[in-house]
């Protein structure tokens, strides 16, 4: 057995492993120091902008306070200016719109927005994410085009950050690319696209209307909630009609459940007929959603539907129905009938929700 040869090989392995271990030890030390350096930089920036933020929030002369930003940004390294601007606007969350607009204009004058827009094309993907994030807060109408380009970025994180930033900016110009992304349900969490579209008002509502007819289940579910949030722009009646259509016709129980759930965000006096009908849906998730949503309608018909549901074979449906009856018992039109239904019921769920309600009281 050539033990000597093997022995030498193993020692080479030992040497190599020792070297890598030392390299990793050095990397750990460097990583620790980086945290310290970053923390100090953050603290230094926060210290510098704090007095300006204070004057902008509480001072009399906004113009002068805004002027103070110029020397501040001049001395800061270029790469930290966008983040500083973000910190500044974040600190100004409580300021009035006029002050915020003045600061945004100043940031534009100091070319901070331009720098952030340029940073969306940097090689390091996390820097692109950061730039999109910053643009969401300090960006202007010109930033929309830049952010739309990032919707095709090869990294999902960058695309997600761009979608969020477009939502923050709320420009209708972003509606078409966001709608396309939403319907494709590709590469960006659908909830993020939903939130951004919701901020676009009527332009976003169109995306949800199309989404209700999508072959993709998740898109249809999200669209139910999306359209329910647009009752002010689309009109309550139109929203209820769209949701009723889903509730009656969709083959997927989870979509019907979503449609029933979404109806509670469009409350009113008369419970939609499809929602009342859904009390008998064969799928328990639909009945659960229905039971909860019926509480949003001050309608004796809702009480009639909820009564038998309080003894539903599905535990959660039964509990939710009893809870909804309790809610309706406080309402004007349905109150008397709901109180009567609660009094006559022998369901365990009614005892349970009554006991729970007493705890709250």
């Amino acid at each position: 057995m050539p033990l000597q040869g093997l022995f030498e090989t193993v020692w080479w392995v030992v040497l190599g492993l020792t070297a890598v271990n030392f390299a990793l030890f050095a990397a750990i030390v460097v990583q620790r120091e980086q945290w310290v350096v970053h923390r100090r930089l953050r603290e230094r920036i926060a210290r510098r902008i704090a007095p300006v933020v204070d004057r902008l929030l509480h001072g009399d002369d906004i113009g002068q306070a805004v002027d103070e930003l110029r020397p501040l940004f001049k001395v800061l390294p270029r790469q930290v200016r966008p983040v500083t601007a973000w910190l500044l606007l974040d600190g100004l969350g409580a300021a009035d719109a006029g002050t915020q607009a003045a600061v945004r204009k100043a940031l534009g004058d100091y070319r901070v927005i331009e720098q952030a827009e340029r940073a969306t094309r940097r090689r390091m993907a996390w820097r692109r994410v950061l730039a999109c994030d910053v643009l969401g807060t300090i960006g202007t109408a010109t930033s929309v085009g830049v952010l739309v380009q990032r919707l095709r970025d090869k990294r999902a994180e960058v695309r997600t950050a761009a979608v969020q930033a477009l939502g923050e900016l709320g420009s209708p110009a972003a509606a078409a690319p966001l709608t396309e992304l939403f319907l494709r349900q590709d590469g960006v969490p659908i909830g993020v696209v939903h939130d951004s579209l919701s901020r676009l008002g009527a332009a976003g509502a169109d995306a949800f209307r199309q989404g209700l007819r999508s072959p993709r289940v998740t898109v249809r579910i999200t669209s139910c909630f999306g359209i329910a949030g647009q009752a002010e722009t689309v009109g309550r009646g139109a929203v209820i009609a769209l949701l009723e259509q889903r509730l009656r016709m969709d083959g997927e129980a989870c979509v019907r459940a979503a449609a029933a759930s979404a109806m509670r965000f469009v409350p009113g006096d008369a419970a939609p007929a499809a929602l009342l009908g859904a009390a008998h849906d064969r799928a328990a998730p639909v009945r659960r959603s229905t039971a909860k949503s019926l509480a949003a309608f001050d309608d004796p018909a809702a009480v009639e539907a909820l009564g038998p549901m309080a003894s539903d074979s599905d535990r959660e449906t039964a509990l939710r129905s009893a809870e909804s009856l309790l809610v309706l018992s406080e309402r004007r039109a349905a109150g008397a009938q709901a109180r009567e239904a609660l009094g006559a019921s022998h369901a365990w769920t009614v005892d349970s929700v009554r006991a729970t309600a007493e705890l709250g009281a």
Partner: protein
Amino acid sequence: MTDALVVASIVVFVYFAVFNLMTLALLVMSYSEIAWLVRGRQPRRGGLRPPTHRPGISVLVPAYNEQDIVVSTVAALLQQAYAPLEVVVLDDGSTDATFERLADAFDLVELPVGPALPLPTAPLTSLHASRRAPELRVLRKENGGRADALNAGLCIARNELVAITDADSVLDPDALIYALRPFEERPDECLAVGGSIRVANRSRFAHGRIELPRIGRGVAAMQTLEYVRGFLGTRIAWSRLNGLLIVSGAFGLFRRETLIGVGGFLPRSLGEDMEVTMRLHHLLRPRWPGARVAFAADAICWTQAPSSLSALRGQRIRWQVGLLECVRLHRGMLGRRRYGAGGLLSMPYLALFEAISPIFELGGYAVAIVLLIVEPSAWPWAASMLVATLLFGQLQTMMALLVQETGFHGYSRRDLTRLLGWSLTECVWYHPLLALWRMTGTVKLLMGRRPGWGEIPREALADAPHEAVSPLTR
């Protein structure tokens, strides 16, 4: 004879070299993920959606004879920065004052339990709500074990997602928010999310959270290293590969209906957390396109690790038996493409490098000793093999600590130095002990002497009483 021993030592060396290189590859993958996580944590707006648009989460806390810690655990859970939230304590037939302590602290009143539970469990005794914390429920039941208690919790829970945790664990206040993220990112694919478990021994606990993480001594320090390697090291990578076969019982988030659909937790299992995760893969991956079990490194749960060798011995024997049972139960996944990375990578890794590694480890020590007795002049060879194996292990530790430092940077410089110091001693005493206990577990299972759950003595967390903010805090 000498030649045979040298060949045996080479086999053991190659086995560990392959094992370590695979683990190292996973660690490198984890590092790239964690670097993203850190950078992505910088400016972020928006935050959470309004509570009406968020899924409700029910936190299930099985408790068996946990009178000393149950109140502080529940108080900490109630401080979670998440709504809608429900905390369900499952008193699994405790024989101590677990329930009485809860009743005193939270002013409990009885509610009807109701009929029609979708999973079979030991009989339920009573259900209680709290006058002080509307989101708290306490379910009393006859003793049936942790899995049985969790099944009862699944039946009682009212939200669509259930988080499982232990009565001796403390969740970071935003742990649920982070755990929810994979569900939001892949709403139609995510089946479950595992949280990141850290060792809390000697850490300072105040305001219902771990305020100052510290490194314990001896056995606790070693487990800190193990947890860092296991959770930050490999699980991030397995999650990325969609081959995560375990969501730790200390903290995991599941779809309630899905869990009930696959039959809930296996009542007699000693590794019910691993078993249910494997079952999710086994039953659902072939039928549910894109289905995945994810890991959320940011969703942190602090747990008390055994601080004595005897407690650790019991735990590790149990874990080994649980692991072997899970591998046996779900061996059908082994090497099958339809289970994706779970069948092709994780399962073979688990079977080859986790389940049977004690045989190779103890075999390696035995071969080295016999070789030195038979051929004393071979000591440089045996020594070089030993040093190489130690350095491979150390490499894993260093890489995992780098991931920890890049991502979380929680420990003080002194604690980190101490941790590095302890890591140098790991291969000398800790690894051989673990191998021995795991071997004991294997032998016990083969002989049909299955261990019970036993009880792990709890250490009270280093609380700061003057900082307690609520009358509910201990």
